[in-house]
């Protein structure tokens, strides 16, 4: 898939839209929310493709990874993620707050499926950890254009190592 080819991206969209929508709908239950998240995930995918070029992993897995990031990010921000669509200039539909609350509850319930290892954590710790993951994804995604996925991964791993280091500052 070429970086700026809209036709190629259209074909990519046609091939994976149903799968991504099914994945997001499974975690949100609400179809409206899932549609919005699907559009956001494709927008993120295009922007990342534009910045970093063709992904090194299988396109479906790459897109589902982006879908997971959009889900987690929306869960952390308590709203459907819309930054990528706004960056592209696309319209963003308003989601009924009640529908979002219901979708957020489903996301929270399926968090252990999204991030293995969260099963045994209390809810507040889950949220903290997911926030860290989203934060690192964001930072990895905001790496300089042209950075390879390997370098982004190293940056992400470095951030996680920094998290593991004991911190001096903290509540007494």
């Amino acid at each position: 898939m070429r970086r700026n080819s809209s036709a190629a991206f259209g074909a990519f969209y046609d091939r994976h839209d149903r799968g991504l929508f099914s994945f997001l709908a499974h975690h949100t239950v609400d179809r409206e929310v899932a549609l919005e998240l699907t559009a956001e995930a494709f927008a993120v995918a295009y922007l990342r493709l534009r910045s970093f070029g063709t992904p090194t992993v299988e396109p479906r897995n790459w897109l589902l990874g982006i879908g997971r990031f959009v889900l987690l990010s929306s869960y952390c921000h308590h709203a459907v993620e819309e930054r990528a669509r706004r960056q592209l200039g696309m319209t963003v539909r308003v989601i009924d707050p009640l529908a979002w609350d219901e979708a957020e509850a489903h996301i929270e319930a399926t968090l252990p499926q999204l991030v293995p290892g969260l099963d045994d954590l209390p809810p507040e710790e889950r949220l903290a950890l997911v926030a860290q993951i989203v934060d690192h994804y964001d930072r990895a995604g905001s790496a300089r254009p042209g950075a390879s996925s390997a370098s982004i991964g190293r940056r992400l791993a470095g951030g996680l190592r920094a998290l593991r280091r004991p911190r001096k500052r903290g509540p007494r």
Partner: protein
Amino acid sequence: MRALRALLARLWLDVTLWRVGVSERMHNWLDPLAGTDEVRYKTFKEIALENAADSLGMDVDDPYLDEDEIPEEGVDYDPLEITPEIRDRLSADREEMIVYIERMNARTRRRRRVRRRRAAVLAAAVLMSAAAAGAAAEILLTGSTGVPAIDQVLSISEEARKPPLPPSTPGVDSASEPVSIPWKSQEGTSAVGVAYLSGRTDLCFSLAVPDDISHVTGAGAVQCQSLAAVASALADHRFFVMTINFRRTVTITGVAAVNIATVEATGPMGEFETRLGPPWVPPVDGSQAVRPFVAFRYVGATDDSPSVDLQDPRGYSVMAKALDGKTYQSPLFSASP
């Protein structure tokens, strides 16, 4: 007094170190008055991370999904039936996205064009600067006739004539492209003559033998005449002699008009061999084409100079024959004012 000063310095140091220590402990949220073994509470994030970080498996090259995290359709989630309504919504989103992608690409292309245009303007400016620098270098390079032996002669000539330089001294700052006239002397030594433009006003002629400059030429082998004088002489006589050198090989150099086919020179020792170069136009507006020529004759003297009677120019004559058969004769150095 000295002891008091040392005491004050030590006191100041102790206070400073104590203040730094307190500040550091307060910065770390530690009680500055408590012992160093105080138990520090872990942050909320540290606790969460300790419990789950190892199971995350985040140290992967790709920031999105590990192999074991990739959801499988039918296992991790069920494929939904796509209703026509959802199909339409997905298609509408797709179309909108394509439109905005095209728009973004167009914006990018415009910016890229602007960048390229700016780069082109910059490159043009750089090229013009380089061209100017090149032109300057060309001016400097015109100090060279292109023939190393001639350059060496000119350098020697200048060194020999400084100071002061006569008006007709060949300059090395604006010589034109050289016209070479190689020939073989009777001693078996190759030499080369070059006519060149000097100072954009004078036509000069230099003669040199590589590695043996003093044998044939030397400073006296360089002679210049103004272009106006050259033009006048060519109009009157179709050729004129510029230099004559009396060494073991007597050489006569000059320029002829383009319609001159042959040049013949004779002296007390007999006829000379001559070489007539191809036409060359000095790169100055209004200049006419000339053909440089060299006539030479090996004298065979044992020393560097021929006998005195051979050094009288009046004993030499040079004649030129035009293409139409006409013959032109000129006294030596006839172009001189």
